[in-house]
């Protein structure tokens, strides 16, 4: 049976994800020529009924890159942008003007997916070192949909077995200015258990 609450270990988890986010931020700076960095918003454990309010994705369409960590110990990572910010990132990475076409080209999609790959690898490296289990990400896929609906699906596996949801959220900055991008990391049940065991062993 899954541990019902992480409450006593949240501070420890905060430090773990802080380190993972720092690694991801270094990778992101390298990928964007020093323009963009990341900060951990926090690791939260909260009732499912409070998630919609806490993460405030709203009910607008978002551009997202989703990666699933495959295997028994896994989870999902969702990188979200509003349309404008997603276009700006793609244009910056491709050294092109911001596209005004309603359709995303294969190249633009690929640039965003590669960003997801880079971030997920940085997070996975930090997590793998801590929990001692090799994590394998799926190829990233590009999706445009309502952000809340995609996050909802990612939370399902945890919601099936626990009253409280563990979620890690991160925001991005460009030269100190906050961007409307987010990364959500949602571990599955086995990863929650692996993290809990690692926290217990380390404390």
């Amino acid at each position, binding site marked *: 049976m899954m541990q019902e609450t992480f409450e006593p270990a949240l501070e420890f988890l905060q430090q773990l994800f802080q380190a993972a986010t720092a690694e991801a931020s270094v990778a992101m700076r390298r990928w964007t020529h020093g323009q963009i960095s990341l900060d951990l918003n926090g690791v939260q454990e909260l*009732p*499912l*009924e409070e*998630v*919609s*309010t806490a993460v405030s994705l709203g*009910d607008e*369409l978002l551009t997202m890159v*989703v990666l*699933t960590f495959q295997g028994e110990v896994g989870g*999902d990572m969702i990188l979200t942008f509003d349309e404008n910010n997603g276009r700006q990132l793609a244009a910056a990475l491709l050294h092109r003007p911001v596209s005004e076409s309603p359709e995303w080209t294969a190249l633009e999609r690929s640039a965003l997916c590669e960003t997801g790959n880079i971030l997920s690898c940085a997070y996975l490296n930090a997590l793998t070192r801590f929990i001692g289990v090799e994590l394998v990400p799926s190829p990233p896929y590009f999706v*445009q*949909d*309502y*952000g*809340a*609906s*995609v*996050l*909802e*699906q*990612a*939370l*399902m*596996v945890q*919601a*099936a077995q626990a*009253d409280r949801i563990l979620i890690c959220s991160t925001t991005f900055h460009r030269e100190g200015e906050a961007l409307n991008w987010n990364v959500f990391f949602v571990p599955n049940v086995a990863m929650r258990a692996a993290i809990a065991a690692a926290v217990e062993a380390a404390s």
Partner: protein
Amino acid sequence: MGLETSIATVKPISVGMGQMAIAKRPGTITSVLGSCVGIALFHPRTAIGAFAHVVMPSTAGKQSHPARHADTAVPHLLQALAEQGATTFGMVARIAGGASMFGSGGPLQIGEANIAAVRAALAAVRIPIVGQDLGGVKGRRVTFDLTTGAMTVEAVGEAARTI
């Protein structure tokens, strides 16, 4: 939020995962649904309605938040509506959601399970489903209009439809 106890008439109410709300004409209730299923119950004579954002099919006997599971959400909505004078007689349901957002190959097909559980819960209390927009692989933004009882469903790249 378990249930919005005040009856909203003007300000739209946004209902998140596992939440429920009640409103009356000319109010509106909105929600974004993925694999969850939204249940909108409407009583035409009193123009009172209630909405639940159902996350999972069944409580499996566990004590939990009533709107989170299909088997407890329907009775809870009916009780809330009865307290406002809306009886089961004449009540109709519209349901939407139950998508498989990450494809349909995995072991946890929660969208389909939610649809089946919601249908069963409504059948158990003999409330007819007069409109539905279910399944698929896309999220939905729904708006439940308490003036007409209709629900507008929007999905990416598709024309809005009213059920």
